[in-house]
Each structure stands twice: as C-alpha cells, then as structure tokens.
C-alpha cells in the first residue's frame, strides 16, 4: 500500500494589508519569518506587532527553510485527492502549518527532516510547503 503524492488545486491566500512581502518573497523561492528587534523572538504567522512583547519593531528575515515534522495527518476523504497537512518546526524554532509533498504520504512520520519547496495556488500565488530532506 502506498499513497503517492498528487498535486491538487490550492486556495489562493486572501491577503490583508501587510501580507504581500511574504508572498512576494515566496515567489522568489524564499521563506520569510518575522523577527522582533526588541525581544529577539521569531514569530509565525507574521504580524505587525510582536505577539511576545507587543513591540512594533518587527522585521522580515529569511528562514533557512529547513526543519522537522512536529505533527501531520493524511486526509484521505473529502478532497479530490489525499493530502498531508502538518506543522513543521523550523530550525529558527517556530512551528508553521503546511503541507508535506513529493513523497509516498504513507511514509511520513513525526520527526522527519524536511526542506521548503514552493507550490502555486489557483491564482498563481506561491506558498511554502515541505518535502522530505533525505
């Protein structure tokens, strides 16, 4: 038994003011995080105010794009094709919701090392997803 990865139509991100730089960078193959210049903490999803200390001195920094799977689930019913939703712990320490792609979905496990890849949504926006690193 195997569940090969299949591409599916992805919803476009409904951007709010402040979100564009993240998706502009994604279009260039870069995963961005917000980092606070006051308390030094990274956060995700990106905000205009640091969720840790409430400073407004938050800036975009490029993430390494590597991490490991914190948790995941392969959704086998409901969609046109099975897909794997996950939280990945980035090397910078923050966890982000994502999809795991480009592998037999049945072989995905917590703790596996992953690296960022990008996929296009229906309307052409780039969004970060992760593939197994090995």
């Amino acid at each position: 038994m195997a569940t090969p990865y299949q591409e599916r139509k992805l919803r476009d991100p409904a951007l709010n003011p402040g979100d564009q730089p993240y998706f502009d960078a994604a279009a260039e193959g870069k995963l961005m995080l917000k980092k606070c210049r006051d308390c030094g903490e990274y956060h995700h999803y990106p905000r205009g105010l640091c969720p840790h200390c409430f400073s407004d001195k938050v800036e975009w920094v490029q993430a390494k794009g590597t991490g490991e799977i914190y948790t995941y689930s392969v959704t086998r019913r409901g969609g046109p094709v099975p897909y794997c939703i996950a939280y990945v712990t980035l090397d910078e320490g923050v966890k982000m919701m994502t999809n795991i792609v480009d592998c037999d979905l049945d072989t995905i496990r917590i703790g596996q090392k992953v690296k960022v890849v990008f996929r296009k949504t229906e309307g052409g926006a780039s969004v970060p997803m992760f593939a197994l690193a090995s």
Partner: protein
Amino acid sequence: MSIKGKACIVGAYEHPLRKAPDKSVAQIHAEVAKGALEDAGLKKDDIDGYFCAGDAPGANVWSMANYMNLKLRHVDSTDMGGCSYLVHVAHAAQAIAAGKCNIALVTLAGRPNSEGSSGTQVRDRGVNLPDAPYEMPYSPVTVNLYAMVAMRHMHEYGTTSEQLAWVKVAASHHAQHNPNAMLRNLVTVEEVVNSPMISDPLHRLDCCVVSDGGGAVIVARPEIAKKLKRPLVKITGAGETTKGQMGGKVDLSYSGAVWTGPRAFEEAGIKPSDIKYASIYDSFTITVVMQIEDLGFCKKGEGGKFVADGNLISGSGKFPFNTDGGGLCNNHPANRGGMTKIIEAVRQLRGEAHPKVQVKNCDLALAHGTGGALGHRHGSATLIMERE
C-alpha cells in the same frame, strides 16, 4: 465576586429531531426555548436575559429576540464555537449575581445535517482573518486539525487507536438507551478501528455525528428557582479561556482545559475526584481523551489508558460520561455540542437520565466544552453544577 450558588439551571430541553429539513433555524431556536420554559414552569415574558451565539440567524441577539418577541434587559452573544453555551450559563450567573437580570434564556439550533455539512469540507471562515493567508492554502478542515492533535498525542504518550476507540464504544453503550440518538447500535473497538480512515489516525467512527436540532436552558436567581418545584441545580463554578498557536510556539499536547478546569474546581471548592458525572465535549474521540487529562481526572498522557476497557460506561466504569450518547452517537446540533453537554448533566443531577445510565446519588456534575479546533485556535469552558 464568585458565581458559586448565585444562580440555578431551572429549565432544560433538547430538540428531539436529528433531521429537520422543513423547519427554519429560527423556528428550532424558538421551539427549544418553548420546551425549556415548559420544563421550568415559566412563561416567555418571564425572560429578561437572552444569550445566543454564532448559530443564531444573523449571529446577533436581536434577530432571535425579535422572532420570539422577547423583552430584555440583559443580552450576550458571546461566540466561542461549540462551547459558547457553557460560557453563556456562566455569564448568565454573573449577570444574575450582579442584578442585571433574573431569568436568562440560552438557545442553540442548527441544521447541518439537512444542509449537507461535513467535517472534511474547508469552511469559509469570513474576511479579515490574519491567519487565513498562512493556513487556507493547506486545506485545514475540522477533522485533520483534530487528527494532528491525535497524531502528536500518540507520538508523545503512546496513545493507541484502540484506546481512542473505547470512547466511541462507551458512547454507543449509552446511546442504545436513547430513542432520539442518531446511532443506537452498540459498536466494538474492532468496528471503530476498522471503519474507513478519514484523516490519520482518526477513523469515521472516531468522529461525531452531523445532526440538526438544538437545545435550550434557563438560568434563574435561586429565590425564583426554589419556587419552581423542580430539583435545584446550582451553578457552583466556571472557567473560560482560549488557546492558540502562541505566536508559533505551537503545543498541541494540551488544551485550554488546563486553565478552565482548575479555576472552576477552585470556585466550586471541590476537586476532580468529587465529580460523580461528567459531560465531556466529544467532537472526536481524541477530544475526550485530552480533556479528561487536562481537567485533572487522570495524569497527563494517561488518558488513553483511563478511557480504555469500558471505564467511561455508566454502571460498569468508574467515570460515567455523556450518558445521552454524546456527540459521537446522539447528536451534535449546529456542529456545536456544548448545549447538549449541559442538558445531560442537568438530567443526571435531577435523576432524570435514562434509568439504564442514571448515576446513583448524582449530586455533583461537570460539563466541559471546546470550540474551534484543538489543532489551531480553540475556546474552552468548564461548568460545575451541584444538586441541592
């Protein structure tokens, strides 16, 4: 100020229908209000406080207040998803204690069964959501957000699919005695783990039902409650909170119940082991396991062992839960299970549960709810009730 003993639940009513294609949502709200008033022995014009949540048409108070033609001096449309109604009862007790109203009505109704709702659909959650651009492309749906919690729980604590299945098995033992329940057949652990995998590791039978229906409760000042010839169900403690992704320091190993439980127990002046009956929110089997741990009924990580081998079955197990069959077997009106959690706890405290599942000398009960999704953002609410 504490709400301990400041208000009582004097009326409770659960709509008997599980599929109601020919009734409007507004009519179901009004029917459950009428049922709760009749249960209490009160009239519509006795109500001076009204509470409803996002399931009410328009997601405001005035649409249903207008439909029912209520005359109000206190209103509250706090929306905490499925646990809204537990929050409403606590807020009603606060309002009564503060002199803002005397008799408060809380209603819930919805028709997701007739409308074809499913936990595998991506739901449109509205506009201006700050998280949506960073989540919606990944197709988060109700079941996979809970499934990620279950997957992590299995990884951290060794919880098994068989242990989760026992939650459904226990619910089915209770639902067989409930003529209104959607699923009345007894199921086995094997049947649960062999049902189709929806989103790893949750099978179809790990999920709650999708049903129409609703429910209502009436909360009143104790002096009024004492005149009503019904068993006296006092509200003695409550807790409410939200938990989220903590700016990216996501931790799916616990829920907001770790905060609401201790606050509610402290206010009531009791400890978890004093509780005789518990209604525990059961959107999925993992929801029950995690909340039992977080409320302190067992140690963290031991919820799987705790629920196994029939421990949740009334009569034979040590921890009778959801004796109406719960969301897993009975109903989950409007995809929100908080109201029915309160109603079954009231039945238990009054001695009005089905004789086959009635807990003996049930004088202290807890109801706990979750709203939203444990796997990203959720609300938690705990309510403790005591029969005088």
